[in-house]
């Protein structure tokens, strides 16, 4: 993690500070840069010299930012073998943190249940076409865990066939939902989030929210057993209200090659604005880890054990979801609306 993101993830910092700090637009330095550039060009300098001269007048932080941007432009940034791009994750983290603090007012519980080191499999309920739930789980671990770490997640393969979304997902640490990817990530001692409901989760109707769908054939348990990774069930309350699906137009879905073509109150009525998720209130609960290493990797071939464990994880999440929905109260209305001051200290009680 970069120093910038670690600093932002500091526990003592309140959301109100955060909003004034890194998210404020650097208007004054930008104007100064443009003035300097204009002056330089007016004196007959070449565009590059003028830019360099103008940059001299910038405050140190802005100069570092400009240099960082130029370094990215020349390809001087790092991606790991999965295409995870730390710099990109840093750049979008203010947006994700804004969604976390202001839009969804996320309350994270049990974050220390996430192992601080080594491999672990986070298993969560899934909803919504865009992987917002994965992003919010990642922010929660990054911000609220005593030892913040990056969360890798498996995304529906369909996301990798879409322009921009495919790039953003991979740069944020996503990989296609294939067991081979999960096993390799866990063998590299990563923290991996999976959503066993998969496309069935995305396609839930509004009336079915928080009713967990079938957990496939328990593939995630096999993966955990094979790699000896502990399973951490995660119950995400709130994500199932962000895109209330009222109906599904199958022929249109077939046309664009998507698993569903959802009709929500805002989509397709408002066009691309329909992709803006509703500001529901979220509660993410990380449950006690289920240890699997002692069962041995051969246990992955024991169908009964696999199905039993999968059912246990599913029941844990289902139970925490129902409790969570009650404890959260109203889905949208709360003391702290998205644009009101939200001090994290009240929320943690």
């Amino acid at each position, binding site marked *: 993690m970069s120093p910038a993101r670690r600093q932002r993830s500091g526990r003592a910092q309140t959301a109100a500070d955060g909003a004034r700090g890194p998210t404020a637009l650097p208007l004054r330095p930008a104007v100064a840069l443009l003035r300097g550039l204009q002056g330089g060009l007016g004196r007959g300098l070449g565009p*590059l*010299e003028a*830019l*360099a001269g103008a*940059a*001299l007048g910038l405050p*140190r932080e802005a*100069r*570092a930012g*400009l*240099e960082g941007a*130029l*370094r*990215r*432009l*020349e*390809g*001087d*940034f790092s*991606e*790991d*073998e*999965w*295409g995870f*791009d730390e710099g990109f994750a840093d750049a979008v983290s203010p947006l994700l943190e804004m969604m976390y603090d202001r839009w969804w007012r996320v309350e994270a519980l049990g974050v220390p249940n996430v192992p601080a080191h080594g491999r672990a499999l986070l298993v969560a309920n899934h909803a919504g076409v865009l992987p917002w739930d994965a992003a919010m789980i990642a922010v929660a671990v990054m911000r609220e865990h005593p030892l913040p770490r990056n969360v890798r997640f498996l995304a529906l*393969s*369909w996301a*990798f*066939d*879409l*322009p*921009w*979304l*495919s*790039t953003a997902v*991979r*740069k944020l640490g996503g*990989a*296609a*939902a*294939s067991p*081979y*990817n999960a096993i*390799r990530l866990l063998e590299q001692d990563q923290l991996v989030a999976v959503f066993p409901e998969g496309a069935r989760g995305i396609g839930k109707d509004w009336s079915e929210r928080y009713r967990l769908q079938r957990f496939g054939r328990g593939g995630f348990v096999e993966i955990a057993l094979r790699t000896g990774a502990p399973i951490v069930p995660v119950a995400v309350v709130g994500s199932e209200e962000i895109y209330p699906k009222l109906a599904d137009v199958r022929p249109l879905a077939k046309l664009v090659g998507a698993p569903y073509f959802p009709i929500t109150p805002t989509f397709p009525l408002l066009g691309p604005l329909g992709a803006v998720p509703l500001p529901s209130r979220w509660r993410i609960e990380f449950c006690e880890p289920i240890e699997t290493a002692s069962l041995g990797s051969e246990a992955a071939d024991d169908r009964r054990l696999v199905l039993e464990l999968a059912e246990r994880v599913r029941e844990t999440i289902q139970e925490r979801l129902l409790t969570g929905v009650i404890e959260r109260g109203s889905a949208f209305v709360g003391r702290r609306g998205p644009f009101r001051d939200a001090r994290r200290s009240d929320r943690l009680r």
Partner: protein
Amino acid sequence: MPGRRVLVTGVSSYLGTQVARGLAADPSIEYVAGLDDRPPRSRLDGVEFIEADIRGGRLRELLPRSGVDTVIHNKIVRRPGPGMSPRAAHEVNVIGTLELVGACERSASVAAIIVRGSAGIYGAEPDAPQFFTEELSRLYPLRTAFQRDVGEIESLFGAFARRNREVVCTMLRYQPAIGPSLDTQITQFLSLPAVPTPLGFDPRLQLVHEHDAVAATLAAVRRPVRGAVNVAGPGTIGLTRLLRRAGRLALPVPAPLFDTVTAASRRLGLATVSPDLRRLLRYGRAVDTTRLTEEVGFTPRFSTPDAVEDWVRARGGRGLASAVGELLPGP
């Protein structure tokens, strides 16, 4: 102990020539023969050059008499060059391999066959494993003509290996090679004045440096293993990052129009973009190289990003941004 006797097919390609040179320089190898239908571009000392078409029947009489114990099959056309029809390329790939397999069947002395195959057999798919291991070659249908050729080549050698248990068949699955001396589809494409890319896609690419491409084949000659082995520089590089490192201008084209634009660039004589490369530029592909390192005992010198850096350095390319960066004062 007498030294080994090696035959290299497709010896006149750049990599074929380099492999033959490497073999000729190895004291444990007594005899090197090179087969191709055109003479090599530079002199090959210590290599007996046989000018013959691999599709003709000459191998069937030559090979059993030569006492060759190791065959390196490098005559696989990845992209039909100028003046070569796709049909001719297909014939060289499939009929040529068939002839070679037939010749090996008749020759009692052949103990090892090393094929410079292609990781193209895995395809490029949105939902693919991010790192293909060798046993995952049949996850997806073979979509392009070249993939089908490679599939056929692999099954011909597979069948041969099952019938002749005493012969070790190594199928090296190469990722595309890059390097200062290479003139391949990828290097030509990346050298276009503006490189068309599918808009909104930034695939992970994996390449092998030309030096490692040669060295991997030589390592497999020293220690042939049964079955398929992936060959690639470890790590991956995103297409955008690659182009920026190379100082190339990306020309994003909406994905549905991408075929039309690349077809136009072929008609203008700029560069050909095969269907395989088109899919690669959209979805990317990487392979797992554990088997290469652990069983063949070869560790590539260049990771994928290093191979790109080396290619960029040799071309002397430099982007606009680095020029600006140098002018900027330090923080």
